[in-house]
Each structure stands twice: as structure tokens, then as C-alpha cells.
């Protein structure tokens, strides 16, 4: 097990380094500097600014410094647009918001998805099953940027039940719509995967044995069927995580929640390269870490995996 963990970590580290180096190379390749404006600055001023941001250094030195600061000090450098803020400040301000509704979306998608899928499989070919299948087919065409306007239209403009944007320190009524908008399509996918996986498990020999022994259905489901059912679901969680963290950009922009997605898009319009890179790298780190956790969980649950 330890060997396996070490090997997985050994793959994760070059991945992250590669991501940082590629982002840096892309940024360096960008035509024009962040301080080029319509009115050219005096040469001395330009030189001073470049010295301040280390842009006068040779390419390799700049890249090395950047990677070193990110890896050793977790310092993503200063923002090119906001003179008084660093990228770390931006992340510290936006990340807790994203994390809050992202966490709840993940929980909702997982719990509702697994419950719905399992219920559909247990009551195979009942109205519940058809409902679950219907939802999971319908939600394929309702990605977050379609769900968000529909939800606001119905619950804010027509019914007036919930606010259509803002964050207000994460009060519950401000969190509900973002969570639903973000989790729906993943909830549907998880339900579909759980359903087909559980149908397969319920037909397996060891379930028949458990039935023959006279165990009550609830116990068969919880003790015997659930764990093997979760394996395909688990391997879907990695892509779902990436999808949700990407979707958070839409949520932040549409609901003005003030998470990192909003900063990301603003920076994309302002060409604030250091913020874009910082957020891309942060998301990359989270993704790699999450995939690592999923892989380890997988190895722990599935007895067939040997290291």
C-alpha cells in the first residue's frame, strides 16, 4: 500500500511541475507585456516597473524564480492589474466562497445521485426507475450555464422565493440556487452510473446467497450491495470534481458569488496573467490531489487491486 501511495505521488509531482512550466511558457509567449498601454511609458519608468516584477531577468531565471516561489513559498507573485494586491490575496478572498458551495454541490450530487440510482435499481422497472432514468437523460442537456438562468427565472423572477445572486457571507438562501445549478448534471450522471452498477451487483451470486440465507433486504443492500456498487461511481468522481470546479466559473459569474471564478474571468478580460496562472495552477493542484485521493480510496475499497 505504501509503495502504491509513493508511486502515485511520484506521478503527481511531475504533473504539477509540468502544469506550472506550461502555464509560464504560455504566459511568456504572449504578445505584448502587461504594462504595454496605448501611451508608451518613458523608458526609465518601464525599466523600473520591469525590475519591480522581475521582467528584466532572462527567461530561465524568471521561470525558475516563479516555480521556486510557487513550490517553496506558495507565493504566486503580485497581480499585474491591482497594484496593491497579490495573487495570494485574490485566492484568499475568493477561494473560501468557491469551496463552500463547491463542497455542498459535491455532497448533494453524491448523496442524491447515489440514493436515486440505488432506489431505481432496487425498484427496477417501477415508476421510480423511469423517473430516475428520465431525470438522468434530461439533465444531460442541462449543463450549469443552462440550469442557472432557468433556476433564477423560476425561483427568483416568477416565484420570488430565493435571491438570484450575491453571497452575503454564505447565508443559506444565497447558497441554494448555486448548489442546485452546479450539481444537477453531475447528480444525474451519478444516478445513472449507480443504477446500472447496482443492477449488475444485485444479479451477482453473493447477493443471491445473502437472500437465500434470509437476510432482510435493507441489510443486503447496505452491507453487501452498496460497496461494490460504489466502485464505478468512485471512478466518476474525479471527472465530476474537474467539471464542478470548472462550472464554478459559471456560477461565480452568473450569481456574482465572488469566488475565484469571478476573478478568473475578470483577469481573462484584463490580461492579468499572474492571476490567471495562479488560479489555473491552484485548480490543477486540487485536481491532482483529488484524483490521488480517489485512486487511494479505490485501491482501499476494491480487494481485486493489488499493488
Amino acid at each position, binding site marked *: 500500500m505504501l509503495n502504491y501511495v509513493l508511486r502515485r505521488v511520484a*506521478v503527481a509531482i*511531475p*504533473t504539477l511541475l*509540468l*502544469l506550472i512550466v*506550461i*502555464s509560464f511558457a*504560455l*504566459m511568456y*509567449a*504572449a504578445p505584448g507585456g502587461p504594462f504595454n498601454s496605448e501611451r508608451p511609458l518613458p523608458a526609465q519608468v518601464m525599466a523600473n516597473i520591469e525590475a519591480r516584477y522581475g521582467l528584466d531577468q532572462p527567461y530561465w531565471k524568471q521561470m525558475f524564480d516563479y516555480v521556486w516561489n510557487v513550490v517553496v513559498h506558495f507565493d504566486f507573485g503580485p497581480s499585474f492589474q491591482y497594484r496593491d494586491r497579490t495573487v495570494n490575496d485574490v485566492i484568499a478572498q475568493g477561494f473560501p466562497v468557491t469551496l463552500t458551495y463547491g463542497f455542498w454541490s459535491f455532497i448533494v450530487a453524491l448523496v442524491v445521485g447515489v440514493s436515486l440510482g440505488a432506489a431505481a435499481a432496487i425498484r427496477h422497472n417501477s415508476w421510480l426507475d423511469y423517473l430516475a432514468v428520465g431525470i438522468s*437523460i434530461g439533465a*444531460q*442537456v*442541462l*449543463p450549469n*450555464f*443552462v440550469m*442557472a*438562468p*432557468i433556476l*433564477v*427565472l423560476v425561483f427568483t*423572477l416568477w416565484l420570488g422565493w430565493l435571491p438570484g445572486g450575491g453571497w452575503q457571507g454564505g447565508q443559506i438562501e444565497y447558497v441554494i440556487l448555486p448548489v442546485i445549478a452546479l450539481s444537477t448534471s453531475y447528480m444525474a450522471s451519478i444516478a445513472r452510473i449507480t443504477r446500472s452498477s447496482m443492477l449488475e451487483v444485485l444479479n451477482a451470486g453473493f447477493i443471491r446467497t445473502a437472500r437465500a440465507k434470509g437476510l432482510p433486504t435493507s441489510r443486503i443492500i447496505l452491507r453487501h450491495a452498496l460497496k461494490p456498487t460504489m466502485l464505478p461511481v468512485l471512478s466518476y468522481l*474525479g471527472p465530476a470534481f*474537474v467539471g464542478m*470546479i*470548472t462550472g464554478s*466559473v*459559471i456560477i461565480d*459569474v*452568473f450569481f456574482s458569488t465572488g469566488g475565484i471564478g469571478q476573478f*478568473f*474571468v475578470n483577469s*481573462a*478580460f484584463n*490580461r492579468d*496573467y499572474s492571476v*490567471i*496562472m495562479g*488560479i*489555473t495552477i491552484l*485548480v*490543477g493542484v486540487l*485536481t*491532482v490531489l483529488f*484524483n490521488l485521493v480517489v485512486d487511494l480510496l479505490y485501491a482501499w475499497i476494491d480487494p481485486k487491486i493489488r499493488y
Partner: protein
Amino acid sequence: MSLNPDPDTADRLLDAHAAAEVKGRSLWQDARTRFMRNRAAVAGLVALIAVCIFAFFGGFLAQYEPDYVDFALIGSNATQGVPSLETGHYFGTDSSGRDLYARTVQGTRISLLVGIVGAAVAVVVGTLYGAIAGYAGGRTDGAMMRTVDILMSVPYMFVLILMLVIFGRSILMLFIGIGLISWLDMSRIARGQTLTIKGKEFVEAAHATGVRPLTIILRHIVPNLLGLVIVYATLLVPQMIITESFISFLGLGIQEPNTSLGALISNGASNMQYGVIWQLAFPLFFFVVTLFAFFFVGDGLRDALDPKDR
């Protein structure tokens, strides 16, 4: 039982044999029959053709150019720009007083093009990459597929936006970027299938007669991947449309005066509180119908062509 079958049975056997020869069906005919029996898939195909006709020929019905601005309508959209047959604005007007019908036709066309071109790039790159990795095997295969693993854990949407910011927001960049990030799944599927084909006799025969590896891949392996490739290409197109719409929704994708379904949905969503619900409804309708159609056709094709799922 006698060894000589009676003449009747022999005749019948011969007849059956002849009939079988006449009715011999190829893999593709077989697939078509199976596809046609799938009602959802056929409905999807019909919807898809309708959407394509709308996107490519709907412009002839439009009374206005997509970039014609009716200045009289700006500001009084909710009352003057209502969808109606009399004014010629079948779908109403957008917030800048442009004809939404013409805009929707244009947006649907661009979304379809981005989806199809993106999927085509992904399919070509992914199939060749996967086929080469699978055929080469050994260390080359290991290195190539590890690279895919590493690239898969990159949050591609962020990198794509980073690329769009750096190299400028153009349709070409969008095509290349979307295509380049989505060949990964395709390469895995193609590699898996190549591994099974590789052991077949006809590949061995080609190898024995001295055909070069690259020619074997292009002539013998890739054509046999075709069924699988078509299925996943069909399922890839809606993914591409979603990706493009995602970026255009943020305003980072297709730029004015061009538009796409994502950009139109974004416009409609930001104006929906002013009582101009049609600005959201029409683009959303075409978006949802297009995606549904592609998913159903893709599922139908998979049932018809994918040998694993029978």
C-alpha cells in the same frame, strides 16, 4: 437416421443456402437495420436534420440581416420587439434591436460548426495517437498513455481560457483549442480497440508480407476502428458544443458580430428580468434540441455498431 438426407430436405437446404446468399448482409446494413428499429435514435436523426436545415438554410427566410440594428427598437424591446409574424421578427429582437431569428440561425450554425470541427480534430488526432500507441506496444505505448494520463488531470477549461487570453479570442483559436483538449478519451478508446485488432490474422498477414508499420496502421487498423470512431465522434459533438457554449457564455469565446448558442443564451439570461423571455427561450430551445438529437443518435449508433454492447 440415414446418412443420405431425403431429397426434400436436401432441396430445402439448398434453397435456404441460396436465400442466405441473396440476403447476405454486411456489417453496415446490419447496423442500419438495428439503428432504424431504435425509435429514439430515428427521432434524434430527424431532429438533427431539421436543426441542420434550420442552421444552414433558415437564413433565407429571415427578413433582416443578423447584424442589422433597428435603432428604433433599442430600449422598447419588451413592447416593440415581441416575436411576431407581422414585423418579420419571428423570434423577436435582442437587446440591441437585432433580429433574433437571424441571430439564432447564425448561432446554431456556428455552434454546430464548432462542435463538428472540434470533434473531427479530436477524432483524427485521438485515433491516430491511440492506434500508434496500441500498435507499437511496450515502452512506447507506456510512455504515450502515461502522457495521456497526465494531460487528463489538467483542468483543461482553465488552460483553454488561458490560451484564448494569450493568443487572442478568435474562432480559429477556439477550434484548435477545443480540438486539442478533447482527443484524450478518443485515444484511449482507439488504443484499446487496436490492441484487440492487432492480434488478428489479417494484420499478421500484412506484417508477414512486409508491409511497413505505418501503412498497417493506416490501411488495416484504422478502417477497422471506424465503427467505434463514428459512435464516439457523434457523442463528442454535443460535448464540444457544450464546451464552446460554456466559453461563449462567459464572453470569452465567439466574439461579436458573430454569435453562438452559448453567447445568445448568455444575452438572454442577462436580459430576462426585463420581460424579454423570448431572448432566452429560443436559443435555449435550439441548444437543448441539438444536444438531445446528438445524444440519441449517438446512443443509437452505439447500440447498432459497438460490438461490446450487444
